[in-house]
């Protein structure tokens, strides 16, 4: 079995990072992402030379109901709102040491999501980051060739977002009918 990479040294070296216990992931500030990734790849203690999986996760604003014990010692259900966010998740392994995974997350907002591209560190991110850009609309700063990859170039919107509503017909084109057809026949307006 491959061994889990310990995260404490990373937290000590880079104070801006924190550990998300529930997800078991290292959350890094976007500005430092490339520096931390390069360090993780080149440092002999980690040598995480292999980035396996890159993906985005879209979190809408949501209400979470939690059961807590209040001051009087009774169970109480409390609702709190969790703000919306966008995560870009990287699964890192070490081929050299045969360890892993270390889950590495860049967190950003939903409205104008922008993170650092890790393609200069691991080439394997190249197509996968393009996919995240395509399907989630995350902008990767420093990506060498950021284009749509699976959807066609004229496509609007980002289908993997949780609030995406699909159009009635993807290939709909305005065809002249009714009054437009009438105008069309008069030769005035072409829609």
């Amino acid at each position: 079995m491959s061994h889990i990479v310990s995260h404490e040294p990373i937290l000590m070296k880079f104070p801006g990072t924190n550990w998300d216990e529930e997800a078991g992931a290292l959350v890094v500030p976007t500005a430092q992402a490339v520096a931390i990734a390069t360090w993780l790849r080149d440092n002999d203690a980690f040598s995480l030379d292999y980035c396996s999986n890159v993906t985005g996760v879209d979190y809408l604003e949501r209400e979470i109901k939690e059961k807590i014990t209040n001051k009087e010692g009774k169970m109480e259900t409390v609702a709190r709102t969790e703000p919306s966010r966008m995560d870009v998740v990287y699964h890192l392994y070490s081929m050299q040491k045969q360890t892993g995974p270390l889950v590495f997350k860049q967190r950003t907002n939903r409205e104008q999501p922008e993170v650092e591209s890790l393609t200069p560190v691991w080439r394997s991110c190249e197509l996968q980051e393009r996919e995240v850009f395509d399907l989630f609309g995350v902008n990767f700063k420093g990506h060498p060739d950021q284009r749509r990859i699976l959807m066609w170039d004229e496509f609007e919107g980002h289908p993997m977002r949780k609030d995406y509503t699909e159009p009635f017909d993807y290939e709909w084109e305005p065809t002249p009918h009714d009054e437009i057809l009438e105008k069309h026949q008069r030769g005035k307006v072409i829609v």
Partner: protein
Amino acid sequence: MNTATAPNYELIQQDGLETSLLEISMGPHHPSTHGVFRMDVKLDGETVVDLKPVFGYLHRNHEKLAENMSYLSSMPFTDRLDYFNSMANNWAYALAAEKLIEVEVPERAEYLRVVMAELTRLVNHVSLIGFFLNDLGALGTPLLYAFREREKILDLFEQASGARMMCNYFRFGGLRNDVPVGWIGRAREVVDRFPVFLDEYEQLLCENEIILSRTQGVGNLSRELAINAGITGPMLRASGVNYDLRKVDQYGIYDRFKFRVPYGEAGDCYDRFMVRMLEMRESVEILKQALEGIPEGPVMGNAPRVFKPNPAEVYGRIEGPKGELGFYLIADGTPKPYRYRVRPPSLINLTVLRDMCLGGKIADTVIILGSIDIVLGEVDR
């Protein structure tokens, strides 16, 4: 990223003679592209100076579909990812989901899983080599030899699961049903006969002069680039990296079998071809051991059909025939996955297509693409 620089080319400038680069769009209906896949190639004469892969023609947003249905419902959809290896896809998904619900898999099911996965590997490698030779110009004969063997294994799949290719055979906590009476014996027959075919095939191909001259030194992939670009599977091992998840992760019961991991040195097309040839022999070894040791008993653990896993994030991966096939699941306490992600080995192995093709001849891009082993159902999802 353009790490490999385009080779120097100088267009001939002469009065009355206008020269320019030739841009060719290979595909999406090119017969050698294994599906609807397009390469935008820029040529200086016959030398490739730039190449861009274009795909997405088969995109159906598998991930979005899976996020809108219960965990078990997307099991049949995983068959359609890499439609040559439905059993391996099933296993990867089951492995990831089993991490969420923590269910015990019975012994017999574990053995049958290994048997199915290794048979799948044989199917994949044998048909890949057939297609690869097809690309080389050996039209028909080697492919039909390969398909003859493949069909014997697909018959076994059909007897066990009811379908040749879209097997939908794995379940969380085991398998859908036990194999029919006499299946193990028939499987043993097929496995025992397989090395005979391999001998014949190797004799026919491995020292064939045309194959040697067309594939050796073509499409070299260095060890460093292979690791950095996340290449996995036989293609990584052909570049000289000994990394096999069956040994590293030892998922399932792979720790019980004795087998070797073949790997290459040069990382050219010939190595990729040979690694697959050798891997088939090792698969036969595993199959022999697994069919020998298969115990009696139930094949399904005590797993519920619809379940609500506690919020968690898991990543399960297996050594698929094409490389590391991973499933990343985020559970949020509902019967549907909040996030469902497939890590497709075919897509990521395409990252280095440009690097391998630059400076080569246009005819070599076809072979290089063939040696990567892609299935567009998985690339586009």
